[in-house]
């Protein structure tokens, strides 16, 4: 009897928490479908009186959000691809290859985790200006090409690759890069998926840096375009909510599909700490 009471109450709390957690997101979707002005009705409404897609239409056509959607998708994909390559190579090397200065270099890189990104922002902007890549895709890609966190994740995972496996391949005459390409990437697939999702999500959601480095509204990523829209259309609640849905939906879908890997990656990283 006591068991049932406990079970029911735990489920009740969980259910309530789940509803509260989802509430802002559900309202966001609901408001995005409301006709103009309805989201600010008094008293506040929960559901649209007649759902409409007009705001999505406005955003994608008149307000150029389709371009921002493309920019975000393109940048996230390219950055993730490059980052996967660079970070996995380095992570594997730090874990399994022996070379002069390996441990010192790794510890040095770890120091970067302590320095907040914002410290580097101003001179980085000036540096990229000299390179002529301000307001270009490269301006956003370059700072995201490699990350200490990514290297760290891969290294942790790669440490568990059996040396015997690698030595066998070397005895067979395979070059180091071949080993990396055919063997290591395959074995590390789970952590690579995690890293990919992590990097994609991070680039997609990145706000401050694209805000600074992209001045052309045709280059804006989705968060920057959204913030811009919020500045001008703060009175158009429903429009803003539609914009928010567009910003949130792709990554959410990606996450739901790949959550097994992503969550496993975080859990392995967290516990081994």
């Amino acid at each position, binding site marked *: 009897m006591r068991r049932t009471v406990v079970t029911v109450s735990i489920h009740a709390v969980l259910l309530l928490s789940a509803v509260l957690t989802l509430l802002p997101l559900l309202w966001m979707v609901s408001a995005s479908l409301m006709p103009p002005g309805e989201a600010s009705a008094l008293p506040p409404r929960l559901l649209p009186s007649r759902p409409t897609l007009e705001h999505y239409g406005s955003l994608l056509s008149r307000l150029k959000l389709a371009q921002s959607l493309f920019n975000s998708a393109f940048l996230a994909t390219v950055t993730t691809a490059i980052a996967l390559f660079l970070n996995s190579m380095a992570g594997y090397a730090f874990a399994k290859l022996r070379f002069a200065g390996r441990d010192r270099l790794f510890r040095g890189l770890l120091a970067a985790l302590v*320095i907040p990104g914002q410290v580097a922002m101003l001179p980085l902007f000036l*540096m990229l200006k000299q390179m002529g890549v301000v307001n270009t895709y490269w301006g956003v890609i370059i700072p995201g090409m490699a990350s200490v966190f990514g290297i760290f994740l891969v290294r942790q995972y790669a440490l568990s690759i059996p040396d015997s496996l690698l030595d066998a391949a070397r005895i067979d005459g395979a070059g180091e890069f071949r080993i990396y390409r055919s063997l290591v990437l395959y074995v590390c697939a789970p952590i690579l998926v995690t890293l990919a999702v992590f990097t994609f999500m991070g680039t997609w959601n990145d706000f401050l840096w694209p805000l600074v480095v992209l001045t052309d509204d045709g280059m804006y990523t989705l968060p920057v375009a959204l913030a811009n829209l919020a500045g001008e259309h703060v009175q158009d609640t429903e429009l803003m909510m539609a914009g928010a849905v567009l910003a949130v939906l792709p990554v959410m879908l990606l996450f739901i599909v790949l959550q097994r890997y992503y969550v496993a990656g975080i859990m392995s990283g967290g516990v081994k700490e």
Partner: protein
Amino acid sequence: MMRRGMKPGHAFVAPAAIAIGVFFFIPALASLLLSFTDFDIYAVADLGRLRFVGLANYARLLGEARFWTALWNTLYFVFIGGPLSVAVSLGAALLVNARVVRLKPVFRMIFFLPVVTTLVAVAVVWRYLYHPRHGLLNLMLAWIGIGPIDWLGDRFWAMPAIILMAVWKNFGFNMIIFLAGLQSIPERLYEAARLDGANSWQQFRGVTLPMLRPTFLFVAVMTMIGYCQLFAEPYVMTQGGPAGATLSLVLLMYEEGFRWWNMGYAAALAFTLFVLMLLFTLVQLRLRSANETTPGVGRA
């Protein structure tokens, strides 16, 4: 297999290391140098107008009320929002992990959803939720008889409003880490405790909490370090207002650096933030090494 010259290992780490070195470490160092100058909009036009001012920017920062406001707000966010976030995460993890719970993956996914959302989008949504008259939150409070609160317009409630939103956004992430920690506690410890006659609460205090300690420390410090960098929420929701109640260090740095182009001063602010975060990290390392010794033996 010792060869002179570049080994494959070097080639593998070179691209990433160079990228990080050139595009992160060098600018970070340059920032330090920049903080000793009065680089501003005049200097942008003509470098000849740059002056080396030594520690003047730091002196100015220490004397400026706005800096202390930003520091106070940031620490408020870190030391109140941080523990709150960790507590909520732990609570959620404990609930989801309970043996009697069905559909664990579903709940886990729901609680994690806010984490993957774009912060700017979420900030926009919450700004509307917080509206004193049109917002959902005050509507719900009215159901339980609490009068309308001007969440983002009242100097007292603005920071709690931001904290609430940040907790909602982040608790799922730490919850997953706690879940991992909880699931790694061996069942036999609980069995042993039960054999000794311990009830649920005593099991929690005697087995769960101590075994969770390393995870707890990790989560706590990582969260606090992350919270030091508060920016997007106040930028989108309040622009640092009302009356500077939600002005954070990074927001102040952005304002000074990218709005007014007082880059020398902004660099000094950035470096001060760095020192703050370094202190937190050192605290973590100190706590962890103290934790590494077996309980009861005392500090090494």
